[in-house]
């Protein structure tokens, strides 16, 4: 059963009377469905249209055209009913700074017909000691954790998480992934946006890769990477004159891309013969290869392959 259905969504910002050349097309014809119980991610660089899309589904923004339903409801028309059943984490955490943690949880619990137990949620994120602390006294990471459990205060069927781990240290990020996984295990559907490759790969059942307001790929992370037909990536930097066409000519190289000045990426099935040929080429031409690395391909490579750019430049 599909929990979210989005069909041919368009949204642009700026002056609509200024003609099609002006303003920014934030979302440009996006369609997809999210199935019950899956964790579905939007992966893309900043400004790709992730937040605009998620906020249209949450009911914050009105699309220029296209249709959206979430849990069978129209987010604009049935907004209050929808909010009874979803948990929303916005990109920027905003909580009453002058309330105590316990007061804030009780307040949010009072907004819903069937609230969850605030104490159990606090315990889950290890903040039970902070119940009497003011929100303003919490660290940034603690505040983010608090914002996360506020999304669970109504035991929602559907979670919207907009960049849920942005700005967290690696340890806190791993902990957040654990809670998101637990929500999925409880049968909740999760819709998240991220620009962290690893986050999309570890958490998401299916991933949309979005760029300039368009979906450029949609599949499971595994299949997206397998679609590269190149399990490895060879990276290096060189100052000499070299172009990607020549590198692409090396036998065994699936694709060669210049990603930034003098920085090259080669996609290969078998690294060993290509490395030999590459080093031979460098020695012939008198080039120095710096930062030479061989890695397994990731969703980042899918993005690079499709756009010629990195997700985070």
């Amino acid at each position, binding site marked *: 059963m599909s929990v979210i259905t989005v069909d041919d969504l368009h949204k642009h910002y700026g002056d609509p009377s200024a003609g099609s050349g002006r303003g920014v097309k934030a979302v440009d014809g996006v369609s997809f469905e999210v199935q019950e119980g899956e964790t579905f991610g939007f992966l893309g660089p900043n400004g790709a249209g992730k937040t605009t899309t998620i906020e249209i589904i*949450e009911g*914050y923004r009105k699309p220029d055209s296209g249709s959206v339903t979430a849990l069978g409801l129209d987010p604009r028309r049935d907004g*209050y*009913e929808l*909010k*009874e059943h979803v948990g*929303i984490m*916005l990109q*920027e*955490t*905003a*909580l*009453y*700074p*002058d*309330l105590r943690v316990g*007061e804030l949880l*009780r*307040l*949010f619990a*009072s*907004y*819903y017909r069937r609230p969850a137990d605030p104490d159990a949620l606090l315990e889950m994120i290890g903040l039970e000691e902070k119940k009497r602390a003011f929100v303003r006294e919490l660290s940034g990471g603690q505040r983010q954790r608090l914002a996360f459990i506020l999304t669970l205060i109504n035991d929602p069927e559907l979670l919207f998480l907009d960049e849920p781990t942005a700005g967290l240290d690696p340890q806190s990020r791993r902990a957040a992934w654990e809670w998101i996984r637990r929500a999925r295990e409880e049968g909740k559907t999760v819709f998240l946006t991220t620009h962290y490759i690893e986050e999309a790969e570890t958490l998401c059942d299916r991933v949309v890769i979005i760029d300039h307001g368009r979906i450029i790929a949609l599949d499971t992370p595994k299949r997206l990477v397998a679609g590269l037909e190149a399990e490895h990536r060879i990276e290096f930097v060189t100052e000499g004159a070299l172009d990607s066409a020549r590198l692409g000519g090396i036998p065994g190289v699936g694709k060669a891309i210049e990603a930034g000045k003098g920085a090259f990426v080669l996609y290969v099935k078998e690294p060993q013969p290509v490395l030999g040929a590459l080093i031979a080429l460098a020695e012939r031409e008198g080039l120095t290869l710096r930062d030479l690395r061989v890695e397994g391909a990731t969703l980042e490579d899918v993005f690079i392959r499709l756009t010629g750019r990195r997700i985070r430049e």
Partner: protein
Amino acid sequence: MKVLYRQLEVELKLFLRNKQEVFFTALFPLLMMSLFGYLNKESSVGDVSYVAFLLPGVIGMSVMAAAFLNLSTSLVRQRDDGILKRLRGTPLRAWALLGAKVLAAGTVILFQVLLLTTVGILFFGVEIAGSVPWFLATLLIGTFAFTAMGLALASLINNADTASAAAHAIYLPMLFICGAFFPLDVMPRLLQHVAKGLPLTYFVDALRCAMLVGGGLGDYAKDLSILLGWLVCCFAITVKTVRWE
């Protein structure tokens, strides 16, 4: 209803935890009344003592501080901080949020009325000879008019610092121009004309009539209809321009 109650409780807590707001709303009017009342305790305005004249003015000041100043600055601050946007992600109805804010202002105002009137009667010998129903009606309409002004200001200005500065720039001069502390006719002619365009003038006038004279509909018709006019206009501005983010 439970939601409204819980939200009201939170709004009052937030008010009491904001020392600046508590000082300017709850203590400043009492200080003004005590100071001006003490310095002029022998004077009179018309046939009432100066303190009796001052008391309704200071009540008007409290109403404006709670309904206009605090409401507009706290709304804009919460919108600036993204709190209003987060609340929109819950089933909390807009009317419940706004209702709680207005009720919180009303609670502070009622407390102020009791405090100031008690101090006026006990320490300054003010004699109340007015009409309780007219006083309550005036208080209610005035509170709503200044609430609407606060909402309009909050809708027109999006930055918290600018909104706070603008609200104070409206509030402070009105206190001195509109006859809250001194009779209008001791003011320069030009300021008297300005005062005639401002709502606090009519609010304080009606409060004074209700506390000291009583009277009937004819004594309040002009003041209250001007306040209602402000209410309607400011509410219309709010509806046209209201924003959550």
